[in-house]
């Protein structure tokens, strides 16, 4: 890769890492189920950015766009199913505090 492309990709790489850290931090330190989902969304944003940046750096932008679109669709479906589960949990518990979900010990 040309040096300019390398620098560009490095910059995007650092950005992706930062967003990943913020996303993981959110998922790990929250007690609210919807916050967990938002953290997952943030992680998916980071990965989408990585796909597009790699595609741009490698010249495979069409393939990268196809992958990004597929990933977005998958992400929407997962979020929708997770929200439905949260709504059902709310109906049971009248709360979405994760502390109440420790009934299943791993």
């Amino acid at each position, binding site marked *: 890769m040309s040096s300019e492309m390398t620098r560009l990709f490095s910059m995007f790489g650092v950005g992706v890492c930062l967003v990943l850290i913020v996303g993981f931090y959110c998922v790990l330190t929250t007690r609210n189920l919807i916050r967990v989902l938002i953290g997952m969304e943030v992680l*998916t944003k980071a990965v989408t950015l990585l796909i597009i940046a*790699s595609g741009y750096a490698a010249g495979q932008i069409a393939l990268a766009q196809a992958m990004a679109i597929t990933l977005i669709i998958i992400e929407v479906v*997962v979020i929708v199913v*997770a929200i439905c589960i949260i709504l059902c949990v709310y109906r049971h518990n009248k709360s979405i505090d994760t502390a109440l979900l420790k009934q299943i010990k791993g």
Partner: protein
Amino acid sequence: MLPLFILIPLTGVVLLNLPFAGALRKRAFALVVLLSAMQAAVVVVHPAGFWAETSLMDRFLALDLKAGQLSLVMLLSIGIALFAAAMVGHCTFRDDRQRSHFVSVLLISLIGMNGAVLVADLFSLYVFLEVTSVASFVLIAFNRDLRGLEGAFKYIVLSAVATVLMVSAVALLMMMAGGTGFGQVKAALEAGQGATLARLATGAFVCGLFIKGGLVPFHGWVLGAYSAAPAPASVLLAGIATKVTGVYGLVRLVVTVFPASETINQVLMLVGAVSIVVGALAALGQRDVKRLLAYSSISQVGYIVLGLGCGTPLGIAGAIFHLFNHSVFKSLLFVNAAALEGQLGTTEMDRMGGLGQKMPVTGVTSVIGVLSTAGVPPLSGFWSKLVIIVALWQAYHHAYAVIAVLFSLVTLAYLLVLQRKVFFGKTSDSLAGVREAPREVVAAALVLAGLTLGIGLLFPLLVHTFLLPMSGVF
């Protein structure tokens, strides 16, 4: 011909949900039983060469599917496990609408699993693993009870982490290889360019697969999912879905994509051994049948990964053989757990006892399943474990071989405890009215037990047709 494995279940889903298909919805589970039996039969009858021929269909649909020996073995396992799950599901759901919804989601998970074992592209592999996972989320949470919802949610979160790892890896590999097909990635990795990035990417992908396969230390979701899911979903998940999503991915990568690497082998063996140990030790203290079987699954998958990490053709063949055997005997044990749950309404072992007289078939098939899991001759589990242990010994991994043998004994211990607590002894009065499980469940248990027994007894004959071809080219 291969696209049919994906298109037939898809048409099934469409047909089931047409407005005028009421009669079809009533027999929904029979449809799945038929489909899975056909899948298993078709794979056994036609050898690999048949599937490689191009047919009329390939002119219209350019689906890039390939089926080598490994894929065929997986298709067979999928057919068998789905057959068992459908037979159990037939007796679990009474409401017609629920039946048709469950069967529709079951068929979608079949699409996901068949697709995952047939594609030749890393990103498509990921897509179909996600299809299987999303179908599993819905299946686990199907009854909307709190435990099922929690189990499904934990699985969702860990699956999202696995997604992040796998897709990042695919993005980085795409950059190096110019594409995501297995062949392209293999060529790029062999050319050895960009070593740090390549290692990062392969490591991330492998970790993602560890999460999906329920290996230690990423096994947090397995317990909740297996024990809280409705009975047919547990059979499907434990029997095949975890194997396809996690373990098949690892096998396919090691065999087809990654160049032979000492690091990867070491990591696989370590993770495999740790899974065996943690799974077996945790299973010793469990009081609930399904939870005990869940930990046992983690342990057995550890054996598969241990054999895979061995690196020699014998080790890999043993791993694949154990994968197949595990899908058979673990499905059998979960079918029996479903029978117990259906008849008793509980899966806690303390409330059971002496059921061997009331549920004779379940008891006998359970014994066969237990002995096969523990690796007792002449059942199938013994042979596959033997192959793995021999492969480890031959490759001078003596410590791992010893661990494998030792924890086989631990497996025997906790499973015999299970058997004794549930089936042997005197029947307590509170269990006086218990009867044998419905016909379909019993039939499924008998078929699976027969397979375990048959493969075990006929192994010397099967060595040439089944095992040796697998250690060759896939």
